[in-house]
Every structure is written in structure tokens, then in C-alpha cells.
């Protein structure tokens, strides 16, 4: 009997990877409630969790750290799943919403809305999602325009160029309007600090739509991985699958960006880890992305609180430092895996 971790990823049962991942996620959530940048130490926080600590500790844990952990959970799930979907539909292991300019698209849309007079509190989710949708379409069109001789890395370059264009346009808008600059500054580096539960409630409807659509599309998407002709032969419509996936990605990334700002590299790291554990089948990868995404985000957030005490480090910085080596690892593989 070969132990589960010695088997080829595709032979492992999904549960054997999913159960440890979920346990790890629970542990991460627990740790993120215990540790923080403030004066409330792990022991006090532990007591407060069981309603026994001081009132201060109880307030810090339940009002500050708990929402933050929940937001991290949500952001991790959306970015991880969006990354997996995007990689499946672009058939490119380097496709990542942050790298490809989808997050930059929603940032730009939010900045535009703010400049046009909206207030940061109300509009952002749907606006960010529309921006993400536009960015998504641009990049997928670029990917498809490359036709037969497509090279995974060219897409990343095109995405980097689109990102830098959108970032430049965003800076342009913000220079133009100081009020918008002031409102947007706090989330443009990507962070889950100080987010409240009400922001989370605002994105729940789109999460439900995205989840249902993902469930519906995962099987056709798996057949699309075998090639366009196979998918057509199995009775699926590749154009429609792609459209649904793009809308899903836009909903997820837009929601995540609206809540936490553009956090790069999560969509690259999470599906990479999931594929390494359970193989390339998108249906299995997606399930595993659900716990792995939050594990990465929550741990990165906890670390970002601890590294630079008593100040905090932006979450986006930490994910870039973690994610860029993964990008290098994928590229350094002798043969670029195609999806």
C-alpha cells in the first residue's frame, strides 16, 4: 500500500488531500485569532475566545480579528478559485488575475467611479466587478488572438503590459482628483486590515452566483481541457463555457478586489499547490482551492501583522514575496506544463 503522499497526484483520492487541508485551514484561522500586532497576546486572546478574558481582549478578538479572518477566508477562496478557473480557460499555468491585469482593471474602475463622484462605501463591489470583466475580456481576447503558436509566457507579458497601462491610468486619475486619491489610498496596496463584516455582506450575492455558475461549468470545463473538438463532441459549447467562466472570474476577482484591494499572486500559488496535490483535473483542483486559498491568505495576513510589529506590512507585499518564487519555479520547470 503506497501512502497517499507518494502516489502520483491523479491517483490520490480527493479526500486524502482535502481533509488535511481543511484541518490546516482551521488551525490557520485559530492562529490568526490568537496573534496580532496589538497588545493582546495569544494567551489572553485564547481566554477571550471562551468568554473568559478581559473586556479589551474580547473586543479585539471579536470585533477586529474575527472579521479580518473571515475577510481573509473569503478573499482566499475567491482569488484561489478565480485563478484556477482562469488557468483552465486560458490553458496556461501562468494565468493569474493579478498578473494578467484583471485586478488592475477593477482598481481602475473603482478609481474612475470615485473620480466621477461616487463614494467609496457604496458602489465599489459592482463597479470593481465590471472593471474586472473588462480586464478579463481584454486578456482572454489577447490569449485567443495568439492562435496556434501561443506561448504561455507571451500571455503573461501581455498581461503585465495591460496591468502597467491600467495602473498608470489609475495614477493619472488619482493625481487629477485628490479626494479620490485619499479614499483609494488605503486599499490600493492590498490588505485585509480594518475591513468590517458589512463589506462582506455586500459581496455575498455575487459569491453565491459565482459558486452556482462554477458548479455548473466545472464539468464542461474539464472536457474543454481535452481540446476544443473533444468538448464540442461531448456536446458542450466552448464559447459559452468560456463566457460563463470569464463572468465567474470577474465576479470573484471584482468582489475580492472591492474588499481587500489588489492582492497579487494568490491566484497563481493556490492552483499551483492544488494541482501538485491532486493532479490537473479542474474539478478536483477547484475543491482543493477552497481550503488552500484561505490558508495562504490568512497565514500571509497573520505574518504581515507579526513581521513589522507594532506596525503592519501590506498583505500584497507579503503575497508577492511568497508568490514570485512560485512563478519562477513554474517557469524553471524544464518543460512548461500546458493545461
Amino acid at each position, binding site marked *: 500500500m503506497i501512502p497517499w503522499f507518494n502516489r502520483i497526484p491523479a491517483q490520490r483520492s480527493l479526500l486524502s488531500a482535502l481533509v488535511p487541508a481543511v484541518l490546516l485551514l482551521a488551525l490557520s484561522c485559530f492562529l490568526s485569532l490568537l496573534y496580532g500586532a496589538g497588545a493582546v497576546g495569544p494567551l489572553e486572546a485564547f481566554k477571550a475566545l471562551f468568554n473568559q478574558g478581559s473586556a479589551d481582549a474580547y473586543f479585539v478578538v471579536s470585533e477586529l480579528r474575527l472579521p479580518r479572518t473571515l475577510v481573509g477566508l473569503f478573499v482566499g477562496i475567491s482569488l484561489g478559485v478565480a485563478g484556477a478557473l482562469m488557468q483552465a480557460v486560458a490553458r496556461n499555468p501562468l494565468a493569474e488575475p493579478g498578473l494578467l491585469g484583471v485586478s488592475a482593471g477593477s482598481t481602475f474602475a473603482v478609481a474612475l467611479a470615485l473620480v466621477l463622484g461616487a463614494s467609496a462605501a457604496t458602489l465599489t463591489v459592482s463597479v470593481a466587478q465590471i472593471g474586472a470583466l473588462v480586464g478579463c475580456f481584454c486578456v482572454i481576447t*489577447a490569449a485567443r488572438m495568439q492562435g496556434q503558436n501561443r506561448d504561455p*509566457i507571451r500571455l503573461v507579458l*501581455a498581461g503585465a503590459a495591460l496591468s502597467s497601462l491600467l495602473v*498608470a491610468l489609475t495614477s*493619472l486619475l488619482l*493625481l487629477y482628483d485628490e479626494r479620490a486619491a485619499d479614499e483609494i489610498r488605503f486599499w490600493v496596496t492590498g490588505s485585509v486590515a480594518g475591513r468590517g463584516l458589512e463589506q462582506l455582506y455586500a459581496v455575498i450575492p455575487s459569491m453565491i452566483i459565482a459558486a452556482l455558475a462554477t458548479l455548473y461549468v466545472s464539468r464542461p470545463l474539464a472536457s474543454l481541457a481535452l481540446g476544443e473538438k473533444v468538448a464540442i463532441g461531448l456536446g458542450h459549447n466552448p464559447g459559452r463555457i468560456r463566457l460563463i467562466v470569464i463572468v465567474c472570474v470577474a465576479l470573484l476577482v471584482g468582489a475580492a478586489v472591492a474588499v481587500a484591494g489588489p492582492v497579487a499572486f494568490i491566484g497563481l500559488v493556490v492552483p499551483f499547490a492544488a494541482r501538485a496535490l491532486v493532479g490537473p483535473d479542474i474539478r478536483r483542483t477547484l475543491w482543493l482551492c477552497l481550503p488552500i486559498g484561505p490558508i495562504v491568505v490568512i497565514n500571509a495576513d497573520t505574518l504581515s501583522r507579526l513581521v513589522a510589529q507594532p506596525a503592519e506590512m501590506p498583505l500584497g507585499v507579503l503575497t*508577492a*514575496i511568497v508568490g514570485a518564487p512560485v512563478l519562477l519555479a513554474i517557469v524553471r520547470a524544464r518543460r512548461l506544463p500546458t493545461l
Partner: protein
Amino acid sequence: MMNTKTHSLENMPPQPQLEGHTTLPLGGESQLLLEHRALRRNAILLAMLALSSIAFLGMGSMVLSPLQVIQALLGQGSELNQFIIQHLRLERLLAAIFTGAAFSLAGCLMQTLARNRLATPGIIGIDNAAMAFAVSSIVSTGISLAPSAMALAGAATATALAFGLAGSSGTRGYRFIVAGIGIGAIAGALTQLMLSQVDIDTANAAYPWTVGSLSARSSSMVYALGIGLLISLIACLIWARRFALLPFSDQVITGLGEQIKKIRVAALSLSVLLTGLAVAVAGPVGLVALVGPELARAMSGYRGIPLIGSAIAGAFIMVVADLVGRTLLSPIELPVGIVTSIVGAPYLIWILVRRSPRN
């Protein structure tokens, strides 16, 4: 393009005159080989640069006519005009010309070296790493090296990392470039981290510089860049003939009696030197390195390696971009990096998604 070639005049039969070329005796046994087409192109580019420079000096919160600009430059005209031109705008113009020329020349060398039009220092992360190192020397008191020196160190580190991580594939192919994108992302994140650690005033002061701007330059760094640029231009002139061999295969270069490694190291170190110094002045305005050589090539069709042409074209682009950034939304000043991104990024996308890429 100007090339020097040494050969003994007595022992050789008179050389047939190359069509479209002129040879100028330089005294002794040296001759200067001038290609007419390259001369024409560089003359046109220089004229464009001169015109844009006059516009650059004339435009601003106080608009001066071209005549007034030239008078003020020559030390005539009213005192006020002389002060504005010579003390306020001239240094910025020099900074724009130097950084544009340096970025563009570095880009042209790197493109030739990697045989890939996309391999410019900005895209493979050298800019960002140089910026991260320079910011570290600005924000922290612990490191006492000058920002220029730190930027050079950063540029060299990033180049070494990109080559090391690309492994056996060398500079060929896109693996090298994506390794560079990763390095650039890490360096960008580190810059943000350092800026988030310092007090808000320092961070605000450093912000325009991190997107690429000429407003926060220091004159000592501009002079350092000028000296580096001069050295690099002379080196390029001397080595132009050897750099022109880089697009050929290794066997051809060896067959012609040149040492490939030496040429590559020379091109790479010049590129790193120029990028590091230019980043220390203006921050990462890397897309100039992509567009400048393209403009120089477009002026005369692709023939040879337009090193000098790239430098002039880059200077021209930078001057125009900064002029646009200063005047378009005045009184708000757009950092020049934003202007070049808005122009350069769509161009880069276009190169990437065209159906039949040339390289």
C-alpha cells in the same frame, strides 16, 4: 552609424568604396566608416530632439517663444528669462535627455544581446531592483552608500539573478523574461515594504519617484549619469562593429575571430551601468527602453544595430513625454513614468498579440 576600423593602408589594395558609405581618414591608420542611411537617420533624430528641447525649455507656467529661449541660452535677453531657462528648466532638460538616452541605449543593447525585442531592462526587472536598492539607501540611515551606487548594485543583482534563474536556457526564449518579471515583482514589493515603514512625509516624497519622475532628481546623480552615458557612448562607438555581430550565431562570431563571451559581457555591463544610473535619476521609466530602439529602427528600416540612433530617439521620447506630463494637466504635473506607460504599454501589447511576430 560610425565605426572605426584599423587596417594598414600600405599593405592592402585600395578598398572598393562601399555603396552608401563614406570613409573618413582619422589620421594615422584609422578610418571612420560612415553609413549614409544611418547618418541621415541620426541627423533627423537630432533635429527632432533639438526642436523638442526648445519646446521643452519654452513651455511651462511662463511660456517663452523659441527666439527668447535661444537668446536666453546664449546669455542674452532679459534676466528673468535667463534665470528661468538656465537655472530652472535646463537641468531638467539635461536629466530628461540623459535618462532617455541611457534607458534607450541600454534597451537596444539588451535586445541585441538576448535577440529578443521584448528583453528590455524594464521588463526583466532590472529597473525595479535598482529602484528597490536606491530606495533602501534613501529611507534608511544605516546604509550610507549613495543612491546611484545602490541602484547600480541593484541592477547588477537583478541581472545576475535573472541569468542564474533562467539556467541553461540563457537569454534565449521567454523563460529569461518571466524570471525577470518575478524578480521585478519581488523588488517592487520590497520597495513598497520599505516605503510603508518610513513616516508618511518621506513616503509621499518618494512616491512620484517610484513611478518614474524627473521632478525629484538630484543634480549630482544627473552628472553621474552624464559621465556614465559619455563613457558608454564612446565604448559603443569603439565596439559597434563587434556588437553588430551579436545577432549572428555563435559559430559565425567565432569564425570571424571574435570572442563571444567578451562581447556579451561588454554589452551586458554597459546595459546594467546605464540602467542603474538612469534609475537613480528618474526612477523606473523602463518603457522608453522598448520604444526608443523601435523608433530608431523604424526611421531607416531594420539594418544593423542603431545604438547611437536609439540613444537620440530615447532622449527625444523622454523630452516629449516629460513636456506632455508637465503641460497637459497643468498645474498638476504628471510623472513622466505615467506618460510613457500610457504610450508604451499599448505598443507592447500590440507587439505581443500580433499574429506573426517578427522575432
